């Protein structure tokens, strides 16, 4: 009765905010994540804060703002950069609520050709509002500048039982031990997950 189960592989892709001003981003990202090597792989994309959050950081150095409040402000701003990246990519779904994330995940585990046709390509952009807010999983990460969007993407990888996590950056992977991956990252990362750090710019330039 039961057929051979086509188990999906979930890949969380953190798109560095520093890549948002890169003109070929849409094409390069598509080439990277939609290679038809592994047809069962689905991509959940989290987008960093980039220059938007850098601006808050510079204001914080001037005004010494409340760290917890600034953390959540930056997380909220990631909702905007994720929407921006979704507009740039111009494909896939935008998941901006816990319900939309659960609906999308439900499609991974239940079948039918109709479902695939209705739900489109296996790429979705996930706003923090879908999994990390003041109410949802607020204790999961330190609420300070120690927590970057890398850790937030690691949290998503944990919550959805992802198989792998890709960190797309503008810098080389060899630098990752020197502070590019933040102190909270290791704690947030699920044990045993495969992590790749990719300098997206150097791959193509």
């Amino acid at each position, binding site marked *: *009765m*039961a*057929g*051979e*189960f*086509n*188990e999906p592989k979930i890949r969380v892709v953190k798109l560095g905010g520093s890549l948002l001003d890169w003109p070929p981003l849409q094409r390069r990202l598509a080439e990277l994540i939609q290679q038809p090597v592994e047809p069962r792989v689905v991509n959940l994309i989290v987008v960093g804060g980039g220059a938007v959050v850098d601006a808050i950081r510079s204001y914080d150095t001037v005004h010494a703002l409340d760290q*917890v409040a600034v953390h*959540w402000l930056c997380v909220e701003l990631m909702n905007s950069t994720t929407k921006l990246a979704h507009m740039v990519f111009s494909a896939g779904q935008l998941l901006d609520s*816990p319900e939309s*994330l*659960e609906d999308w*995940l*439900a499609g*991974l*585990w*239940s*079948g*039918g*050709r*109709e*479902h695939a046709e*209705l739900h489109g390509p296996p790429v979705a952009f996930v706003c923090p509002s879908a*999994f990390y807010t*003041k*109410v*949802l*999983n*607020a*204790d*999961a990460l330190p*609420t300070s500048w120690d927590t970057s969007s890398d850790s937030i993407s690691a949290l998503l990888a*944990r*919550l*959805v*039982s992802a*198989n792998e996590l890709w960190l797309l950056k503008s810098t080389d992977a060899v630098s990752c031990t020197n502070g590019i991956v933040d102190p909270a990252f290791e704690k947030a990362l*699920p*044990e*045993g*997950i495969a992590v790749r750090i990719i300098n997206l710019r150097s791959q193509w330039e």
Partner: protein
Amino acid sequence: MPANLTPQYHKAEAAYRQADSAQEELECLQVMLREIPKHKGTDKLQADLKAKIAKVKAEAAKPSAGSAGKATKIPKQGAGRVILLGAPNCGKSQLLAALTRAHPEIAPYPFTTQTPMPGMMLFEDCPFQLIDTPPVTGDFMETSTVGLVRGADLVLLVVDLASDSLIEDTQAVIERFQGGKTRLGRETGLDEEDVGVSYTMTLVCLNKYDVADADDRLALLDEFLQLPWDRIKVSATTGIGLEELRRQVFERLEIVRVYAKHPKEKEPDRSKPFAIRRGETLVEVAEHVHRDMAASLRSARVWGSAVHDGTTVKPDYQPLDGDVVELHGG
């Protein structure tokens, strides 16, 4: 429980048990009150619901506690959610690792699991979400554990047959869930007498059954602590009982797998089933496909054990496990 509760009532009840906020609880309770059949047999339940709504309304009206919410929200995946619950070092993380592709930190000392850790467990072609929780003792339990138990379809209460303190440890876990609003039970659902009290079906996992004196410890457990739930003997390290455990989860959650067939195709897609619960209808299958499909569903053709192949049925048809369906909208 009064007869003839609608599927919408049961859905709202399940959502109520899993609600993360007073506002969500309120919305679910209002649906339950709307959907409950209005007759003498439901008078008490109606009164309970109204009282609960008044209480939750007051809670919802209070100013938000902001970051004091601290709810653990793990997105739901698969046909159901199963929680691993137990004392420190009873082998919950080993079970998660053995049953899923998740790789939790496993160490032979207590309190390794600090945060809930989800993974996906398969029974044949049916996936379930299995969540390892931080250990519970008489002195301490993470607040998020209660919410996870309340929102789960099944709790696997893990008992360590290699531990000389298994009676005290198990007793401590059980006592944590006695007398509160979230309790371990033989069935999952709300209390008939008090809709604020929720039970989650529990299965005892007698883990580490491979150790030499496991039977002796089990005899002691039975002598001093009567566990009112069904049990299964397993070993995460040797694999004893794990296949049976997967089957038990599938059967206890009363899952019905339905395979979709496109009208233009001769064969159904058997790579992934749609999972519904026993008693649910083709409308629920259509909801899995797409909300619009559920609203427009007019009929379906069914290939299965209860009907002749290709029989046309109405949307209220209740499929059986393994049925193939071809949905037709209006």
